């Protein structure tokens, strides 16, 4: 997923009324000198009229590849394939999802479909959240939690409609689900487009920059299928065979509950840093060059998902350390 000729694709999620259409209209109308195509869903909030707007049906297909949670967006495969046949090259593509959509099938499409991953690359998942309603939406709809959990960027919109305390609270709530997402506070989705598009968040080298903004305190469970995150660090090198066995098995068995995973690994006897990132059971992994001289060689892994506390992640990770 690293070729320069791949067109970046930004996935725009968020509940109905959060402000996705405002952002899309800005992307389509602002003078930025870029050529963007926008794939909208049929339940869009209001009509957006532009030559480069494509209607999609948000069709989620199961793949017959033995991976039980592997679903992809069939319409996206078709539309991205069509857009790649254009004579004029696009600078970026934006995919809007419906408010109740699970972002996983969109992300998985880029892992599973060879034609899609040859010509395009997943740039980032951007979630527009409504500062007024997000807290209640998180309690009521697991899709809202998923959209926050998958996000690389959360545009916390409509902050002018709530007081500072409420903004603090909703940020804390977002952090509990996803300590890695960049939170941008806005009114009318007025964030600079450079902070939303062209982020390269799914490229493996960006994983190296991951510095979680973790909360110190344990959080209280509001209900059983809360999305949470856990991360582990080790200065002791890991055994590659042990890690592969543990991690492969973990994704196979618990992949449905693990929404996103990322990591930088220091394997015993290897000079290169190994980097991976995954969505459910699918993952992309690669050596990413040698460790920088003079810096600590520490392994870091991160999981965002449900029921993480039942997966014995700590013990599993510890068990991969070289004895």
């Amino acid at each position, binding site marked *: 997923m690293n070729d320069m000729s791949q067109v970046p694709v930004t996935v725009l999620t968020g509940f109905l009324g959060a402000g996705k259409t405002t952002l899309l209209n800005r992307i389509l109308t602002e003078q930025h000198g870029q050529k963007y195509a926008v794939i909208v869903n049929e339940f869009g909030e209001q009509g957006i009229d532009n030559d480069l707007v494509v*209607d999609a049906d948000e069709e989620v297909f199961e793949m017959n590849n033995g991976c039980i949670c592997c679903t992809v967006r*069939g319409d996206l495969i078709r539309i991205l394939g*069509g857009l790649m046949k254009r004579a004029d090259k696009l600078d970026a593509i934006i995919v809007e999802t419906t408010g109740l959509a699970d972002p996983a099938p969109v992300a998985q499409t880029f892992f599973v479909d060879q034609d899609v991953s040859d010509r395009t690359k997943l740039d980032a998942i951007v979630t527009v959240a409504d500062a007024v309603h997000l807290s209640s939406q998180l309690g009521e709809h697991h899709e809202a939690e998923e959209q926050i959990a998958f996000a690389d960027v959360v545009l916390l919109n409509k902050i002018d409609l709530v007081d500072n305390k409420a903004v603090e609270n909703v940020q804390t709530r977002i952090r509990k689900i996803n300590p890695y997402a960049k939170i941008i506070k806005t009114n009318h989705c007025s964030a600079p487009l450079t902070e939303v598009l062209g982020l390269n968040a799914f490229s493996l080298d960006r994983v190296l920059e991951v510095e979680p903004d973790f909360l110190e305190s344990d959080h209280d469970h509001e209900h059983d299928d809360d999305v949470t995150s856990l991360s582990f660090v080790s200065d002791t090198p890991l055994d590659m065979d042990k890690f592969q066995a543990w991690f492969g098995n973990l994704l196979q068995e618990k992949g449905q509950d693990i929404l996103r995973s990322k990591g930088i690994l220091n394997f015993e006897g290897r000079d290169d840093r190994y980097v991976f990132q995954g969505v459910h059971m699918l993952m992309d992994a690669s050596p990413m060059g040698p460790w920088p001289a003079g810096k600590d060689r520490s392994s870091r892994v991160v999981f965002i998902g449900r029921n993480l506390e039942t997966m014995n992640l700590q013990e599993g990770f510890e068990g991969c350390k070289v004895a």
Partner: protein
Amino acid sequence: MSEREKFLKEKISSLVPEETELESRGEHFNFQAPVTCSVTTSHSIAVGFGDGKVRFFFEREKPRIIDAHNGVVLSIATNGEYIFTGGDDGRFLKLSQNGDIVEIANFNSRWVDSVAAYKDSMVCSSGRNVYIWSGDQKKAKSLEHSSTVGGLAFDHTGKRLAVSSYGGVTVWERGERRWTSKRLVWKGSHSKVGFSPDGKYIVTSMQESELHGWRLRDKVDLAMRGYPAKIKSFAWVGDTPHLATSGDHQAICWPFDGKDGPLGREPVCVADCGKQISTFIEPLTGEKAVFVGFNDGSVLLSELDENKNPFVIRNPKGSEISAIAISPNRSYILIGDSDGNILWSTLWKNN
């Protein structure tokens, strides 16, 4: 130049392939937009491009350019006389070989992904719906499906229309008064669809880099697997016939003779191109031979015989072959790629 340099220069230049016969006698064009589709009509070859243009190639003439769509020409079909195109501008068009354009329908931001035609019937799909116009009808008959249509195909009689989508194929049959349907089920997403020339089988290419087929008499399933890539192109070759398919390092040709077709039988594999993946298949009309285009732009011609060597028709130019078509009286060949290159040449020497 030192001896060593001379030696290297000779060595290197001998690695650069010489022009093939077709390349040296043919005309070369670059149209600055990907070639997306092509079809052979009664008198010409029509080619669709990524900038919305359609070009008609007549033997011994300059190509005729038609500004058809405001975007990509996604699909093309012919009833012999006219061509029908679907575009990402949402329009379904009927074009004459003289360049007259009639807009049959406009679905705006919904693409017209697939088209088909048979005599006085023309069909297109947009989203989940298939629209059929027959005879002089102004208004289309609309057939709805449970998911977006992947492909359309008439059988050789024009009475049956196969529509592929998620989970299988719907076969519509034209009755006295209305269209009736039956469903062929197979899990997964089906795209391109086609009937065998005798109308006894239906075949689809799938998202999972495999083909699926059904024997229509008893709905027996035929799974054709083992491909390293998606099958973008397939075609029926020879009288037997064989189903020649892309998606591998060669053309994989499944036998459809006998009463069980390819059930339990091995395919014939021809036109091996090493590491490249085949992307386009076109039979040499009237022969048991097939043109095979690859993702590096090379094209081979091979008989359906594993013991025969293929001929190199076109050398690699770097981008994927997206069209191969033979002119109506079999005297010219057109080869197009996704960079907009077209090779237009007589097929035989001294033509």
